[in-house]
């Protein structure tokens, strides 16, 4: 099956006064039709820049410096800006983290939904507004007719995020990129919004790239995941494998430090996490080297390459050799 999107060796650097910051450093990923794939990592690991690069929304001092983004037979990094505008919001749609910042405060929510439909689907104004109300009903906004005329500030956070989903699915996209869609919402509203997102994408057959730092959400909604660290994908595979047999020490450390409902009170020792503030890292060693509990001499001398553990499970670590596996889970 041909994937909806295939990203090859994508690199986005930021040229700052302090040096070149490799926010995305050779990321390859793909999403199959109808599939929900998670891109998971801590803040600052480059997951958002990765999605912005796919959408060609990176702004200076950032620049996509290399790689390919294949979508419907075209490399999106080569197409004209005019064509890209036609693809954005139509065939590839995005749900952002902060819905209150994603809507224009001076237009009604209905008008903003309608605008997308006028632009992409060439509907008439009235027809588009009627469709907008329908979409709001689809995302379970009560009293949709009246609500379509309301402005973003009159919506609560959860309602606005549902309107955002309505906007994203309005053109029945082939790919939906959801960037931390529920981070700013309350717990029970998070559950509402995520259920809605997964139901609507399923009924439309859209593929979803779900960007999150919440491992519970990964387990609940995604079958496959990419774990990102310092701009690189350090491990990828089916979620259950990543959990049961993590091959990369970073993946194992992450699972171990998640504060989980499933885990009773206890104290355990973790690497004295200094985080990933240092994206201006050297090329010549493994990015996780300073924090890794399993580091060896080799790790400091050479940058690891992505190795296949099996056909679906890949890892970026010197300790893993093709076909072999290492037990790192504590």
């Amino acid at each position, binding site marked *: 099956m041909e994937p909806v999107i295939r990203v090859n060796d994508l690199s986005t650097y930021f040229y700052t006064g302090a040096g070149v910051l490799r926010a995305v450093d050779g990321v390859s990923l793909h999403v199959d039709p109808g599939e929900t794939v998670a891109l998971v990592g801590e803040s600052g690991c480059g997951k958002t820049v990765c999605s912005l690069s796919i959408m060609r929304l990176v702004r200076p001092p950032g620049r996509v410096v290399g790689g390919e983004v294949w979508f419907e037979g075209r490399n999106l990094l080569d197409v004209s800006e005019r064509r890209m505008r036609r693809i954005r919001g139509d065939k590839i749609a995005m749900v952002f983290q902060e819905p209150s910042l994603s809507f224009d405060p001076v237009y009604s929510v209905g008008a903003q939904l309608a605008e997308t439909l006028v632009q992409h689907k060439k509907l008439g104004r009235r027809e588009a507004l009627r469709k907008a109300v329908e979409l709001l009903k689809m995302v379970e906004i009560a009293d949709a007719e009246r609500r379509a005329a309301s402005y973003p500030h009159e919506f609560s956070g959860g309602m606005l995020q549902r309107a955002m989903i309505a906007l994203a699915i309005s053109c029945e996209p082939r790919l939906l990129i959801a960037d931390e869609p529920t981070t700013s919402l309350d717990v029970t509203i998070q559950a509402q919004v995520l259920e809605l997102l997964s139901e609507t994408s399923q009924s439309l057959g859209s593929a979803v790239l779900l960007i999150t730092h919440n491992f519970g959400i990964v387990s609940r909604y995604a079958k496959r995941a990419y774990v990102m660290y310092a701009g690189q994908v350090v491990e990828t595979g089916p979620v259950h494998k990543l959990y049961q047999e993590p091959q990369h020490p970073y993946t194992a450390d992450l699972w171990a430090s998640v*504060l989980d409902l499933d885990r009773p009170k206890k104290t355990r020792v973790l690497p004295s996490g200094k985080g990933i503030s240092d994206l201006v890292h050297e090329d010549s060693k493994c990015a996780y080297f300073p924090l890794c509990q399993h580091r060896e001499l080799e790790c400091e001398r050479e940058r690891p390459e992505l190795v296949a553990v099996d056909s679906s499970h890949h890892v970026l670590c010197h300790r893993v050799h093709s076909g072999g596996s290492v037990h790192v889970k504590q």
Partner: protein
Amino acid sequence: MSNNSALLHVQDLRMYYPVYKGVLRKKVAEVKAVDGVSLQVGKGETLGLVGESGSGKSTVAKCVVRLVAPTAGRVLFDGTDLCQVDGERLRQYRKHIQMIFQDPYTSLDPLMKVGDIVVEPLLVLGILRDRKQLKAEAERALELVELNPNKLGRYPHELSGGQRQRVAIARAIVLKPHLIICDEPVSALDVFTQSRIVEILLALQEQFSLSYLFISHDLAAVRFMSDRIAVMYLGGLVELAESQELCAHPLHPYTQALISAVPVANPEVESSRQRIVLPGEVPSPLNPPPGCKFNPRCNYRKPGTCDREEPREIDLGSGHFVRCHQYA
């Protein structure tokens, strides 16, 4: 829920904020941010307080440290009602109760150096004046939160979020308090940093037999920290039980939904969990529904009872309390 040996004993706490309207600023309504909350924290114990935004959990914290004066109720600390003391005596009590806030980016003075931030409480309360001693205290406090003493001369903006939160903790423990109120202390932090901070808090508790009131919307963090957990909804407690008991056998429909809304990391466990999606949103505390405040979103609502009568607190034994008509 009465036990006289408790360090902190909150009794029927109420905090109503007036709402003014019009040119004459006439009082037109009240927001009942906290409406009859009773709880207690024992010595060396952690009580978790969970709830969503607007549930009143932070208002409880503000009342306990007396940043606001509650409308009614008592806040007994070591037997003294903090609502009745004022001025210098209140200041002396503040020594024993410290607070850690959610956002270490806004809770630390950007113009002060770390060393000065940490020892400021000692100066303010006139406990220490000698510069050498102050510096030694600051160093000791930073060591306790596993922060390198070379950070003493730094400004908050030079530190990461996790380091700032450690500074906030150091500042809280420098007075050797008995009780620390932690208001969403890990919500703004990353996975690794969260677990580090939680571990530091647990280690400090063990070392100084501290008591914590740990407030968060994140049930997983609360579970990890707490001995007992109280669940708040729209200004009132709906359930209180031992941590393990509450997570394994939640009784209130809201607690059940809250627990099911938090996905767990283990994919196998997660796939077999029940998912309860609550309809609608939390109603405005300005205009709460009659009867049980949860009834408009409840899947077990009994019309005629739940939308008319406020449920009483039911004691189910072994420290498990619930407010729901189902168990009456």
